[in-house]
């Protein structure tokens, strides 16, 4: 009896929790098709806000900039994050390890206003000394990479941790050099983590407001900056349309990549077990 109750209570709690997590997403998508300008009252299906979006130059150019920065950020974050994760997982002792692990994870929790302010002040002092860099896409990229690297490190590190070391040891025994081990054994084993880290940092960058606001210069408004300034003023149905589109693209990306990765993983496992059987 109690276990029955427990089970249903558990299911109820989970359902309500997921409803809470997904309610805003559902609302955004549904109301992007609302025909009314009247904020949140349903008055019929329409795609007018998508059409309006196509003529919204501010958002379109912001999107272009955001996309460029996000691609660069994702690549650099995954590269640096892999380095950091490798260091944290494999090099247990080196001078400054405590400082290093602290710095690697601090951006995850550090309030963004503080990261943004301090990076900007540093860039301004650098600029005073050397005359560059101008604030713009490059400086935004720098800030996003700092944040993205921390996320990428967590994702890659947890994969490195659970990965069996015996494969690497075997490769080493068979005469592989450390660099070969890394590229031939370690890297293929962590591709899934690299892909999800890439996607995560990509969307992180595509979404960031605070760092971008601190680090952007005149004329370099990313899409979130545009959306944020409009959202502050009130509700804008075009923003709903942007939301629905990004959600669509991201969900397709995430689902497709996780399906692909799951298949690749299955294939790899099959090969491994076949190799063991065949000896």
């Amino acid at each position, binding site marked *: 009896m109690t276990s029955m109750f427990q089970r249903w209570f*558990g*299911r109820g*709690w*989970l359902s309500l*929790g*997921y409803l*809470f997590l997904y*309610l805003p*997403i559902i*609302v*955004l998508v549904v109301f992007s098709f609302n025909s009314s300008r009247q*904020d*949140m*009252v349903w008055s019929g299906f329409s795609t007018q806000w998508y059409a309006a979006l196509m003529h919204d130059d501010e958002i379109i150019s912001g999107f272009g900039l955001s996309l460029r920065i996000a691609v660069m950020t994702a690549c650099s974050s995954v590269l*640096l994050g892999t*380095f*950091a994760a*490798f*260091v944290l997982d494999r*090099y247990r002792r*080196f001078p400054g390890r405590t400082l*290093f*692990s*602290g*710095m690697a*994870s*601090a951006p995850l*929790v*550090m309030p963004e*206003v*503080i*990261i943004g*302010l*301090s990076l900007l*002040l*540093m860039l301004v002092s650098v600029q005073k000394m050397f005359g560059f860099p101008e604030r713009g896409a490059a400086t935004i990229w*720098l800030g996003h*990479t*700092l944040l993205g*690297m921390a996320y990428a490190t967590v994702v890659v590190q947890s994969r490195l941790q659970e990965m069996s070391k015996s494969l690497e040891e075997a490769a080493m025994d068979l005469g592989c*050099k450390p*660099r070969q081990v890394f590229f031939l054994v370690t890297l293929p084993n962590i591709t899934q983590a690299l892909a999800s880290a890439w996607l*995560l940092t990509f*969307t992180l960058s*595509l*979404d960031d*407001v605070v760092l971008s606001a*601190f680090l952007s210069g005149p004329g370099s408004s990313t899409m*979130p900056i545009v*959306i944020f300034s409009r*959202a*502050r003023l009130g*509700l804008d149905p075009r*923003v709903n349309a*942007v*939301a629905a589109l*990004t*959600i669509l693209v991201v*969900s397709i990306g*995430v689902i497709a990549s996780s399906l692909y990765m799951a298949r690749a993983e299955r294939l790899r496992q099959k090969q491994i077990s076949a190799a063991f059987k065949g000896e």
Partner: protein
Amino acid sequence: MISTLKHMLTLRWITGRRFVISVPFAWLAATFLLPFLIVARISFSETDGENPFGNLMTYADGVFNLKVKIANYLFIASDDLYVLTYLSSIKFALITTLFCLLIGYPFAYFMARAKSTVRPVLLMMVMLPFWTSFLLRIYAWKGILANQGIVNHLLLSLGWISEPLHLMNTQFSLLIGMVYAYLPFMILPLYANLVKMDMRFLEAAADLGATPLQAFWRITVPLSKSGIIAGSMLVFIPAVGEYVIPELLGGPETLMIGHVLWDEFFTNNDWPMASSVAVVVILLILVPMAILNKYQAEQREGGRA
């Protein structure tokens, strides 16, 4: 020069190791550590909108410097607005953490006790919102809670209320947004902890006559302590300095320090003051961050064993 470089790169294990360590180390030192040192220095410099670095580099008069140095901090300590704002930021962060724990603990618990085939799906569903825009999800709450929003519309049409409730731009809307945004940060470490728990402890407790509730309080909760602490810190620390959520969902009664810092910087152009505000925030979250580091390390080591 090039030959030394080549030499360094081709020397395998030792220098390879050094290279692998130094790349991320140098990057973090340059983009994370150095900026904080600069902020700390600027926070001690004189308020001067034109040239915030003005008297920073000169150490002509030690006495004068000392006087200038702490002026910003004295002002923060003596000004009611700053003190109240810090206190209210901490208050909102604490309440957010508490609610995330109250909602997130049972959530993570039931996730961890679900069938092992369902668990990856449940986990994926918690992570998925991370991949959709945080800004837009917060913005959506505006539409849900507004006077002409979904909640009011629903309640009005049900006849439960005769006038729209004023939900937006209140402490309530701020807390909804904060709990919403930070809930996954509570759930994920708790889940990671609870899913690893050895169920034999609970069986032993049951064999020894403990009721499920007793077993929960005396075994499950203490064993998940590191998850609780890690999750709470992951919520509390960023919540203290949150800027976007109070800006979109908060109101006049929801003072947050992130807003003050932003204003000092962008509106007043007072860089030294903004830096001082930031330094005080950093000091506030230093202890929570140390605790987080400790328990995260503990949890990782636990995962290894």
